[in-house]
């Protein structure tokens, strides 16, 4: 069709403009209505041909004509924007439990955490690529069990899961400190509510059973 390279005639241009501006697909009759009933069949055929190789195609669905972007262009029409976000505390705990106990079901995670785990929390971990569903546990209800992925090891710089510190090491690092400690850290997020005098008077009178080697670690953590 040699006319493709030459300038289109006005009827073709009009049909082109009408279809372009239309908010809905149009039938041949709809288009003709804009054009005092002109016969637009040839114009449509020409446009269909002209646009066949382009980034936009003129397509007919049933009796309705409309322009649409070429199917192979679909992946250019979206753009990814990376948004760095810090894993929530709940998600971090979940991930840790999966890493230490895998494969593990959601119910098991909950029983270890002692808190219900929102569905979204696991989704986030899977989105991050650190956790995968690893089949089902052959118990009543056949719950899905979860495990970590190779990306998990890569991200955390672990050769294997065995590199994760054991409980003894955690204890030595003070990471198994009583809940109070953890609570305290969590409370720090809140404005200081309680009477500071009260909080202060305690530790220097009472001989502490638990020394606090983690203090320096704490600091590092909090600023992280």
């Amino acid at each position, binding site marked *: 069709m040699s006319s493709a390279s030459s300038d289109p005639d006005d009827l073709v241009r009009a049909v082109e403009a009408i279809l372009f501006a239309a908010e809905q697909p149009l039938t041949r009759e709809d288009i003709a209505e804009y054009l005092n009933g002109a016969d637009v069949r040839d114009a449509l055929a020409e446009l269909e041909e002209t646009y066949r190789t382009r980034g936009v195609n003129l397509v007919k669905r049933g009796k309705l004509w409309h322009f649409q972007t070429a199917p192979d262009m679909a992946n250019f029409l979206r753009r990814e924007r990376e948004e760095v976000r810090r894993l929530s505390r709940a998600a971090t705990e979940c*991930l840790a439990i999966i890493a230490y106990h895998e494969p593990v079901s959601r119910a098991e995670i909950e029983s270890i955490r*002692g808190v219900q785990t929102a569905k979204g929390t696991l989704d986030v971990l899977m989105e*991050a690529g650190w956790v995968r569903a690893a089949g089902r546990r052959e118990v009543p209800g056949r719950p899905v069990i979860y495990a970590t992925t190779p990306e998990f090891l890569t991200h955390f710089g672990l050769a294997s899961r065995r590199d994760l510190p054991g409980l003894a090491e955690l204890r030595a690092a003070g990471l198994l400190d009583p809940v109070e400690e953890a609570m305290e850290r969590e409370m720090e997020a809140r404005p200081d509510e309680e009477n500071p005098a009260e909080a202060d008077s305690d530790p220097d009178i009472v001989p502490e059973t638990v020394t606090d080697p983690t203090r320096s670690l704490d600091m590092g953590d909090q600023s992280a």
Partner: protein
Amino acid sequence: MSAGGEPQELPLGPAAPSDIDWDAPAPEIDRDDPARLYIDIDGFEGPLDILLDLARRQKVDLRRISILELVDQYLEFIDRAGEMKLELAADYLVMAAWLAYLKSALLLPKEEQEDPSPEELALRLQLRLQRLAAMREAAARLMTRDRLGRDVFMRGAPEGLRVMKKRAWQCEWFDLVQAYGQVKARTAPVVHMVRERLVMTLESALSRVSSMLGVALDWMELKQFLPPHADPQLKKSALASSFVAALELAKQGKAELAQEETFGPLRLRSMKRGGN
């Protein structure tokens, strides 16, 4: 306006050809009949607007209008408005007064002029009219362009472009390990490790209170039984234990208690002495 390079001319002399169409849309006024003045005050945007409209009726380049004629036209306009009992805003009247002054000044012999000269004032008025006319013309031309949504159209049903937010999650090794530690700590079987506190046990309070009561001659306040130099922590404990000890002694019939009022000092004394 004709060629821009040449110096601006005096508002005198014959009409010059104009290459800008000054007859752009303006208030609804019958321009074909300068003799007839329609009073349509609503259609005007202030006195300058009226002056511009009147100036255009002279059908000459704005640089060549007759200011005297313009003044007369404006004053006539104001008179008509007065006859028709139209309420004119003050600025229309102020303009009328100023124009009347300008007219008389223009008619005076030149030697009697003060500064600024009426010619200057007239010129200033003319310049302002030109500028307003220029902008009105520009506005009209702007409005007749092919406007998006009126004359030209964007695609009616664009597929739309999407921005996929891809979240990159971040978590450090330490966060992970620490979180596990905390889970373990939080959910470990609860073992109450009662810290060694400086406390006065009930036993020691009992023996202390009863021995002190034994030698007391009269009522003693409870706080007199407390160890005198105890630190605050111990004081609290001693107070509680001593109170319970006092109750216990009273129950055993070895002491009696008295309190004058709620929260008042609690006194006690030995039963042997007081009872007998």
